[in-house]
């Protein structure tokens, strides 16, 4: 009994030491920029970028495996912030400048099942069971998660309507300049 205990202890210690050594020796430096980049991202883990969440997305960006323009909810503001952090300049003019999309509930179809409400990463949908739900435009990032889960197809993404607050001058169209 004692021998068994002893030998196991020794084995454990030895292996632990080896592991420690290995950890020190084969340590992979985590790029501190990954954390920085992740902090810039919206953090909604919505997956629109094709990655399972913001953290893998940040890693891919830092490793140059994904373009800076990967995150639709972040928009041009995020692209620029990323560019500044990583010291890369990007031409945002090529970015799809379609108006941001927002989810909207069709009140005639919604059955108040609260599925979408639980799915939304930003808690942008308000409602109660058996009551028609509403999307708060300010909080919606247009990630589309709710669209897929809605059993009645009551949710759809629509272009955000411009208001006096969001309207901007269009770029002059010139043939030659």
């Amino acid at each position: 009994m004692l021998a068994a205990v002893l030998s196991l202890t020794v084995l454990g210690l030895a292996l632990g030491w080896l592991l420690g050594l290995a950890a020190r020796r084969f340590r992979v430096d985590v790029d501190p920029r990954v954390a920085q980049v992740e902090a810039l991202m919206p953090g909604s883990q919505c997956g629109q970028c094709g990655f399972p969440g913001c953290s893998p997305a940040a890693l891919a960006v830092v490793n140059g495996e994904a373009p800076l323009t990967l995150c639709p909810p972040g928009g041009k503001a995020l692209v620029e912030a990323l560019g500044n952090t990583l010291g890369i300049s990007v031409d945002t003019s090529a970015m799809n400048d379609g108006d941001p999309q927002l989810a909207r509930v069709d009140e005639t179809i919604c059955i108040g099942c609260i599925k979408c409400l639980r799915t939304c990463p930003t808690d942008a949908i308000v409602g109660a069971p058996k009551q028609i739900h509403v999307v708060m435009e300010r909080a919606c990032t247009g990630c589309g998660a709710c669209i897929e889960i809605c059993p009645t197809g009551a949710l759809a993404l629509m272009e955000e309507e411009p208001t006096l607050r969001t309207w901007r001058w269009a770029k002059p169209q010139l043939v030659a300049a």
Partner: protein
Amino acid sequence: MKLFRFRGGIHPPSRKELSAGSAIETMPLPERLYIPMQQHIGTPAEPAVKIGQHVLKGQLLARASGALSAPIHAPTSGWIRAVTDFTAPHPSGLPILTVVLEPDGKDEWDEFPLPKDPFEMPPELIAERVAAAGIVGMGGATFPTAVKLGGATNKHIHTLLINGGECEPYLTCDDRLMRERAFEVIDGVLLILHGIRWGRAIIAIEDNKHEALEAMRATAKGYGQLEVVAVPTLYPMGSEKQLIKTVTGLEVPAGGLAAQVGVLVQNVATAYAVHEAIRYGRPLVRRIVTVSGGAVRDRRNLEVPIGTLVDDLLRHCGHDGEPERLLMGGPMMGTVLPHAMVPIVKGSNGVLALSKPELPEGSASPCIRCGSCVRVCPVGLMPLELMKRAQNNDLDGAQDYGLSDCLSCGTCAYVCPAHLPLTHYFNYAKGELAARAQQKRKNDYTRQLVQARQARLEREAQAKAAAAAKRKAERAAKKAQEAEA
């Protein structure tokens, strides 16, 4: 008085002769008034009336909301017919919350308690009353006047500068106001001085307005603290920083405010509104508007109730065919209107219906790097370089070249031999910058929401676990009890 010269500037054809001879007339009440809830810089006012309600002239329609806002009052007596979205006087043609008032034809003022002698009033009361009267900068900037006055009392203001520049072509409403109501304007200036506890004011008028200069000089005579100066006619003299430079020689730093160099600037029409508010307790419910342009038959200066449609004004003055371009304000910095069904607001100094020959012609061609734009820019920017960056969406670069100091005054585009829409590019770039800032705010907000949700989910999970543990304990206790029994 020694004057200074700001850099650049241009002499566009003044076209003021079209309306300068027309004395101020009262615009008859239209069938309906459309009064937007935002006519000032800052937060929109909040409607305080119900549909169907009868209001008297000057009665409160909407309360100021927040520190930077202004209340709105009924321009005449009548019934509230709707509180609804209506086209704003804005190039986008987008709607804004608007109170619709049907005049009862009596034009009956609400009663206001009259102060005995305003100069006996404590100075703070002036700013308070100006705020309650809903007065905003009437030269077009529409910054709430009381906020400026309130700020002035605790800063080192050494000069009150009254802007009678009116440098935009066509516009003559300030000119007529100074000619015909010099006493009231001067009284307003003295009241503002009292409000900021300061003694000296300079009234600057462009030297092409002889009659206005004469009238104002004659009225100001005898007040040692007032000085009327003729400043050269040069666009954009009426711009705040350029006027300060001309009169005082002081340069407002880039990105800075007039108060930083100790100057408070107010427009002559604003001074008039202050006179009305303090002497008679009357809120700002009407203004003088120049209706002019080649497409207008009788060019006039009309005293118009706020909320009158541009269409009503044009029909009153008569017009020949459809105008080539419709503007609110002057041709250099005014707002291009999508159509005439938009209301006059507190900042509307002109309505211009221009005909084809009055518009610049020629289509854009590549920049020939002639440098004309650089020579005339009153801010000292390099418009051609700015434009290049705006074209390439290089907003940081444009910022480095002073984008946010650009006045959008149109001087550079006016002289450009290649007819390049320089100012339009700068408006575009400024809009993009604002959009960027908005997006950033949204991203930050999203992050907050996600964190809040995460915290909530964790709390819920914990609560669930706790509930499960409790149930388990209860079950165990029950079992133990059963075993005991």
